[in-house]
């Protein structure tokens, strides 16, 4: 666990990122996408942790060793979604064919408060930008403040309004802010698949082997007693994204002791839905660290 995702340093140098951002904004998505290939090869050659994690994941989901083409496609898919964050965050929606599945689930909750539970798959920014675009769907996001610090900071210069929707994790009053937001009828998004250093975890079956998942989302859902909606934004190649919304009705008992015992089951139900979606879109899995650590 020691070398979890927080141990990874951010890859890529600031000038290269600025260059790609400039090309993306001033020349266009087509030109910037050509650059994704050298970037992908750079990652495959130099990013040992990411490369190994990708191969391990692909082996588990395919049930066999991945081909080189599949490994390239996985990294390329990741790079493509990062590039598209530029366009989502700068509000250029029309570029994309975004298909909404089950959007009535979230519309029914507009103004009454809910937790949106997602994962590091595909693109969460597609949803965040949608929330800002369609008024009446205010979405805040719980995030680790220093994760991907440079990329996130650079991208948010495109849309400072979105920066204000981030609730940074780690403060004493972080969850109080979440509580106030949902009480005011806002939706608060969080990614339920990564464990913070020292965070409490529960072991869940995921792609056929046990992996540690954080219990924070389950605890928060239990304390706030607001509806939980699962959201997955999957990239399907070209300019297409599919956003899936699902009601999540795993139940948590009220008493604290009973609740603690039920956290594992709740989290397993989430892990099962996550597995369902990555099986449909396997190249959308973006946890490039040892997700199944052997103790």
């Amino acid at each position, binding site marked *: 666990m020691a070398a979890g995702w927080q141990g990874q340093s951010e890859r890529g140098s600031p000038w290269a990122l600025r260059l790609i951002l400039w090309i993306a904004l001033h020349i266009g998505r087509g030109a910037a996408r050509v650059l994704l290939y050298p970037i992908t090869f750079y990652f495959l050659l130099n990013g040992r942790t990411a490369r190994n994690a990708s191969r391990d994941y692909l082996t588990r989901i395919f049930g066999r060793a991945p081909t080189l083409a599949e490994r390239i496609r996985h990294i390329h898919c990741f790079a493509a979604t990062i590039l598209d964050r530029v366009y989502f965050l700068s509000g250029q929606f029309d570029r994309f064919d975004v298909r909404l599945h089950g959007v009535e689930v979230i519309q029914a909750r507009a103004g009454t408060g809910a937790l949106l539970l997602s994962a590091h798959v595909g693109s969460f920014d597609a949803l965040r930008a949608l929330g800002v675009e369609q008024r009446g769907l205010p979405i805040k996001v719980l995030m680790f403040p220093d994760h991907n610090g440079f990329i996130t900071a650079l991208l948010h210069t495109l849309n400072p309004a979105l920066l204000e929707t981030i609730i940074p*994790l*780690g*403060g*004493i*009053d*972080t*969850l*109080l*802010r*979440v*509580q*106030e937001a949902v009480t005011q009828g806002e939706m608060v998004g969080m990614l339920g698949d990564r464990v913070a250093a020292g965070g*409490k975890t529960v072991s869940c079956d995921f792609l056929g082997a046990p992996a540690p998942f954080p219990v*924070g989302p389950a*605890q*928060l859902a239990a*304390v706030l007693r607001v509806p939980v909606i699962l959201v997955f934004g999957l990239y399907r190649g070209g300019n297409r994204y599919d956003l899936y919304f699902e009601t999540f009705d795993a139940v948590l008992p009220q008493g*604290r*002791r009973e609740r603690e015992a039920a956290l594992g089951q709740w989290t397993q139900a989430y892990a099962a839905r996550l597995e369902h979606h990555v099986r449909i879109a396997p190249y959308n899995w973006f946890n490039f660290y040892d997700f199944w650590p052997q103790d």
Partner: protein
Amino acid sequence: MSELTPLELEVGHLIVDTLNLEDVSAADIEADAPLFREGLGLDSIDALELALAISRHYGFQLRSDDENNARIFSSLRALAAHIAGHRVK
């Protein structure tokens, strides 16, 4: 061991009951020891539950935009002092 005031003891009971702390009794809490991370070792979900219990019990909201939160939650003594200054019941 430092002496707890009656309100500190009462808030200590609220902490122990709300968070189901086993092996800890209110009278054993050090008034000036940190509540979170070190000391009692509470985390952010505990902070939220405690804040909600305080608002039910004492009738006022602890707010996330209070810049004194780090100080308010720093120890039982600080928390009790804040409650004494803001309680409406």
